[in-house]
């Protein structure tokens, strides 16, 4: 694989792999960028050994897992503490809503309200069924939920 192909691959997959690192590295933007850089440095170093016909996407994900392992080993002591992780401590995100917000109907359509209800009334294992019931994929369900969340946030700001 030549250098030009490498750069095309970087253009094509940079965002996707950055997102992957971001998701796997406790949503730390700097860590994700560092690891993405490391991943593509490896690609550049090894590009002469890679074939154009190889499934480069699989190679990138597998290499990304190795980069993550190496990164975690290297940053064992300086890793993000559990206390700082919103998700780990199940704490409200800094820009989350205050607990006295009670009226969804003033911000959401009935359909959106129903989606939220369905989503939160089911356990994780049943999300597929919920998505199926709504006629969408699970990922789409997550996206809908995220949009609803954004909508609530924006309405709240306007008020």
């Amino acid at each position, binding site marked *: 694989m030549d250098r030009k192909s490498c750069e095309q691959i970087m253009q094509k997959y940079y965002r996707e792999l950055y997102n992957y690192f971001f998701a796997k590295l406790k949503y730390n*933007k700097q860590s994700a960028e560092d690891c993405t850089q490391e991943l593509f440095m490896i690609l550049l170093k090894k590009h002469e050994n890679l074939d154009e016909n190889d499934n480069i996407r699989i190679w990138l994900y597998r290499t990304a897992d190795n980069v993550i392992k190496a990164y975690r080993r290297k940053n064992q002591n300086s890793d993000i503490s559990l206390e700082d992780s919103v998700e780990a401590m199940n704490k409200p995100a800094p820009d989350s809503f205050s607990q006295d917000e009670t009226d969804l109907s003033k911000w959401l359509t009935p359909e959106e309200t129903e989606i939220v209800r369905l989503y939160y009334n089911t356990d994780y294992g049943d999300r597929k069924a919920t998505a199926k019931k709504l006629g969408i994929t699970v990922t789409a369900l997550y996206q809908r939920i995220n949009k609803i969340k954004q909508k609530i946030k924006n309405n709240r700001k306007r008020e």
Partner: protein
Amino acid sequence: MKNNDIINNLMDDNIIDDIQADINAELEKSEPDYDKIAELTALITEIKGDSLSDEKITENISRITEEYDSQNKRSKIRILYRWISALSACLVLVLALNAYTMVSFGENLFRTVVEMTQSGFSIDFSGNTPITTEPPTSSVTIPTTTFISANTTTATSTDIFIPPTIMTQPATTGAAIAITTAITYSPSTTVVSPLTTCSSVATTSAVQTTTVEFPGGAENNNLGNIISEKCSEIGITTCSIDYFTDMEFKDFSYEENEVSTDCYFTFMNNDRQLDIIIEQYNNAEDIPTTLIPSNQKNYYVISNDTIGEIFLFDEDTHITAVFIYENTIYTTIGHNFAFSDMEEIMQAYYPERKN
């Protein structure tokens, strides 16, 4: 579920945990759906508000390629350093080996290498190694028929040949460094009219030239007595030769140059002539590499117990024998001599004891 509960759920990031669970579930599959993973991770980034702009991605990619190019350049430099280190190590090894061979055998490794580039027969006395450098297409034949054993003093013919680099006797304790002496010979003259066309340092500037002619007809002259006597007269000590001959001592002359004193002896008997040239250099550093013009491709090496190795060049009309001892080069040219006779003469040289 009450609105409060929903709001509470929306306030935290449980959705992200759900997405993470989905990602992990997908990754555990033998053939993960990377499209799905890409969607889910993109969603997480979006939810977290840390998506990258296109400009930022372009900037980051540029940084990666620049960093890679920079590392690649450093890597090449490191490789160069490694080569330099390796070559330096080799050089140190060769220097050490050279020092060892100089101490142990009087052989200098470097000169052998240097003289390989010169044309014609070149004798580097510091390495004591004659080298012929014919054009590459022409094969250099190594003589295999004549060698006089270091332990014998008579000329013999055997099938043994000792390559020049495997000499057991050091020829000299004074190392020679590259000046060139071309030895020429004019058979029509009774006095050898050589010789020192030294390239740089030893430009000939005769201060004193003396020619003494002895009456001929003396039987069983000892060449050594005559040489020692004449050298003693001009105040130099050289190797002598213990060789009785029916040849007459015909001529002696000497020159004192800037860097050396050169003596010329001529002995004759009928059609045979023996010219002996002794060049004693003031400093070992001035001793030149000797070039011997020759039409032949072969040279012969014999070993004298007390002198060391002696090189013989057998031409059609004459045989030239050359050796060095300390800071003196001895050239003996025999006309109409059998090779075995020349070998015998050369084996008769021995170092003069210094008083």
